[in-house]
């Protein structure tokens, strides 16, 4: 498979690689994320029941709550934060959470937005994705379909 690379804008620097968790729906972290477990607890959200911890979390944009920075910071304190965040448009309060997570807990959560092509169309759940926010680059390393074929061949 040819690696897909998408240029994007850096909101918070850092590099991370992991499996993707993707939604087309906007996400209010305060309402939807239990920071102590990493679980999505909002029954009305399509990610309900999923866990964000250690994932590359891909969602279009955040929905207003003044409290979402504290949610991200608490998730980081509990070791349940996503590894990186990809948005179409990042809500600035999320960046506040990321700055504090680095300062308080030494945990870097790279955040990128304004991608050249829409990653929500391209990236599927469990695809392995690398976010290089230092260079402003999203890289699709391996698709889930790809991994399955490989397993079959082995």
């Amino acid at each position: 498979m040819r690696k897909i690379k998408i240029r994007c804008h850096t909101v918070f620097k850092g590099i991370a690689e992991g499996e993707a968790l993707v939604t087309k729906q906007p996400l209010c972290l305060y309402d939807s994320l239990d920071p102590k477990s990493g679980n999505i607890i909002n029954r009305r959200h399509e990610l309900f029941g999923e866990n964000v911890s250690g994932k590359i979390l891909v969602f279009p944009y955040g929905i207003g709550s003044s409290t979402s920075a504290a949610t991200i910071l608490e998730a980081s304190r509990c070791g349940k934060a996503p590894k990186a965040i990809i948005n179409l448009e990042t809500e600035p309060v999320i960046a506040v959470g990321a700055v504090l997570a680095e300062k308080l807990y030494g945990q870097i959560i790279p955040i990128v937005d304004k991608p050249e092509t829409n990653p929500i169309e391209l990236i599927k759940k469990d695809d392995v994705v690398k976010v290089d926010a230092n260079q402003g680059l999203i890289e699709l390393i391996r698709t889930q379909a790809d991994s399955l074929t490989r397993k079959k061949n082995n």
Partner: protein
Amino acid sequence: MFLTDEEQAMLNGEYGEAAEIAMSVLEKLGDIYRADRMIEVENVHIDGAAYGWIDDAGLELVERFCNSGAAFKVPATLNPSSIDFDMWREFRVTASIAKKQFRLAKAFMKMGAIPTWTCAPYQYCTNLRFGQNVAWGESNAVGFANTVVGARTERLGDLADICAAVVGKYPRFGLYLDENRRGQILFKLDQLDAQSFTCTDYGVLGFFVGSIARARVPVVDGIPKNVNNDQLKAFCTAAAVGGRVSLSHICGVTPESKTTTEACGGTKPEEKITIGINELDEIREKLNTLRGGKPDLICIGCPHCSVGELMKVAHIMKGKKVEKHIKLLIFTSGMGKTLAREMGIIDVIEKAGGKVIADTCWNFIPSEEDILMTDSVKMAWTSLRKFTDVILNNTERCINWAVGKID
């Protein structure tokens, strides 16, 4: 973004840990919003003052700031706490939550915070003035400061507000700048008897304006000059809930908007909307989930009641008794309650069976009730995760329901 030598030194850690962390957060926000520089703010209202909002990580941050010897650079008022500091035991709040809120209060106050514990700080000791730069959190308070007083503030998120208080600065963007304060969409009241509007009617009006304006700055023409601060509070609160409105130009009220032309900064509005009785009825329909049901909980004071509002409540309740199957909760600030107590108002309300809760927000009061009645558009819109159904009524009708004068 341009940083002064002092701001750069803060970022480099030369002014201690708290200033370094605070400046890192503010510099990142400035970078995201393309601010050209920092501005000095005269005071800060801290939105995230409740343990229930900022959680253990927030508590750790505040205690870390405090232990590093930091003091707030400018006067900083506090939003509601997770508990009523005097009466928390009455409400099945766990001891562990109370303990953490007390720790948070201690750290905030050691840094010099003003313990207002209210979402409506403008009703008391915040010295706001026209044109003044402040840094406030809490959407209703931000709306009031910008709309009614003509002070200038963006809407600060939790934790960023604490950072602003530590350094007394905030990046210059959004509503701090003239060009972003210009009205963009004009609302005209059409054959509405605004003179007879209650606070709840103003809330419904605000919700409509917010839901249409969304991220744009609305101009509202046709509000009578004798509108009072409680009504304006209800309007601003609901406008921030219906959309994300942090500034409305109310012609003849907002200091920078004597006329619609002035409100739009000399330009023409992009869009004109007429508001009649149908528009407001549609909003009422949307907010009421029940027709003809009976409430088991009635809440007043979202945002916190002013002393004037407490007086009105007491006036209606005097000599009456809250129905057995109904609980009546009235929320205000500690200051409001102290003043009202001295005036004999709290006594009247309590004798009639109502409960006046201070320092905290209905969000943090555990409840088993199913059907809520409230006079607040904000509470009606945001409380459905707590209650099965919500009925919106004006204050007088809510209180009359409580004392069995309506069925």
